[in-house]
């Protein structure tokens, strides 16, 4: 099913005002309703390599698989939809590719990347994430954060050591507790949410949410929702105007209309005949 007419996607990435390279990578496959954002880390150019590998591996592998399969198909073995398994497998594949490269090539030692993947299908979005890159959602004027960071700060907030207010001033914002490519295996956090026409989804690296208040991000999406490309540029510009201390990347996805998976009686009959 081609989702190019169903989802409007706008992206923008920028090295920021301080850094010389951009270690963030973004990729979008509008046909398959897939968007991927990664924020790489590691010395020299290794961060770019890690995030680039993550987005490339996931997008190309998923494209191949989705050429012959639908995410909402049900696996006969365990009676579950294949979407979550597919996404998880591609994330693991990206993990081992990055890990292998880091192990075998000294210049890539220690590289890794955060990740947010969204797969839109059947009026739903499947989200996988690792680290502190985020997914936000704007629905009916309400803006909220969907993913929860895998970071030391978030753990401290959860355990009540510090409040969200104090967290904004904390110095160790940069420590993530999960990332892609650091260990031989990794478990991404996967969730599925129902989408509604009119929803706007925002994937971003910490270069945006560390520099711009959530309130201002929400306001920008609401004000400029009519022009997604401009909204993406505006968000990056706001991060840069506030100092732009890190690479800034945003992916915006607007759901234009319903996109139910073909699951009628006929589809079932066809599946059964196969």
């Amino acid at each position, binding site marked *: 099913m081609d989702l190019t007419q169903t989802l409007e996607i706008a992206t923008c990435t920028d090295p920021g005002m301080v850094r010389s390279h951009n270690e963030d990578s973004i990729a979008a496959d509008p046909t398959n309703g897939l968007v991927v954002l990664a924020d790489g*880390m590691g010395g020299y150019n290794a961060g770019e390599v890690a995030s680039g590998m993550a987005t490339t591996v996931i997008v190309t592998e998923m494209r191949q698989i989705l050429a012959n399969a639908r995410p909402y198909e049900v696996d006969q073995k365990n009676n579950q939809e294949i979407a979550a398994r597919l996404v998880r497998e591609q994330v693991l594949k990206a993990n081992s590719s990055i890990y292998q490269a880091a192990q075998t090539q000294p210049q890539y030692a*220690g590289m890794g990347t955060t990740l947010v993947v969204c797969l839109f299908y059947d009026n739903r979005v499947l989200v996988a994430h690792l680290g502190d890159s985020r997914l936000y959602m704007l629905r009916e004027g309400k803006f909220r954060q969907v993913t929860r960071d895998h970071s030391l700060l978030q753990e401290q907030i959860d355990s009540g050591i510090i409040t969200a207010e104090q967290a904004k*001033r904390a110095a160790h914002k*940069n*420590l993530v507790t999960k990332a892609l490519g650091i260990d031989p295996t990794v478990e991404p956090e996967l969730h599925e949410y129902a989408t509604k026409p009119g929803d706007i989804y925002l994937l971003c690296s910490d270069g945006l949410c560390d520099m711009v208040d959530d309130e201002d991000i929400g306001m920008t999406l609401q*004000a400029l929702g009519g022009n997604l490309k401009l909204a993406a540029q*505006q968000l990056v510009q706001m991060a840069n105007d*506030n100092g732009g201390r890190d690479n800034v990347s945003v992916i915006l996805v607007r759901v234009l209309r319903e996109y139910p998976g073909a699951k009628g009686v006929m589809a079932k009959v066809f599946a059964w005949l196969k």
Partner: protein
Amino acid sequence: MAKLILSMDGLVLKEIPLTKERTTIGRKPHNDIQIDNLAVSGEHAVIVTILNDSFLEDLGSTNGTVVNGNPIKKHFLQNNDVIELGKYKLKFVGEAAPAASGEKADFEKTMVLRPAAMKAAAGVAAAGGGAQAAVAQRQAAVQASAASAAAAGIADKDARTAPAAAPAAPGPAAPGKPAQPLGAIQLLSGGNAGKELELTKPLTTLGKPGVQVAVLTRRPQGYFITHVEGASRPTVNGQEIGAAPHSLKDHDVIELAGVKMEFFLKA
């Protein structure tokens, strides 16, 4: 590096730098900060310092620990917090702001806290024992991972140890607003002619959705107008603006969706 200033009745007794991961406070001599006063418990409180953040925790003391007049169990110390233990006062002074913003940049590089490092640290903490094992564990994990990250060339060790203010450090999205004059628009035509609108928000949208919408953005360099949607673009002083943001000057006249308005800067 953060420090504590111990005083009694307004008299400064000594300055204690927070060099250790755990700095204990109590009456007994084995404490890092010994306060020989009966109002202070044997093991009264502990300050755990994780990178540039310091946390104060009461260790179940008899008379409790008070920060800025409020009794606390756990507290994230901020610059100039005053900890009271009986008649004694300990003032917490955070680190000075880094000289160059370049130092800060490296400091903020994302790093991963490896589970392996966390587990190893957990072992150390368990061996060390103590009621704050969990906190110590985390903190040890941070140290360990920071060390391994530095070794792997992920982080610049010097940048990490460079002074960075805990409270003043990576400021939360605080745009450089103070020096910038406030802008406003006054409607010159239409039903609301004469009405004035202050542009206090980072962005203000104008126009009619579906017909013509423009946005006025407030940036450190000044105000800009950008076309958002609609077939025709707004004009500034009679000139149609392009796709890029257009810088606004004092007393520029904007025409949008058939309404004229004047942009001006407030003194």
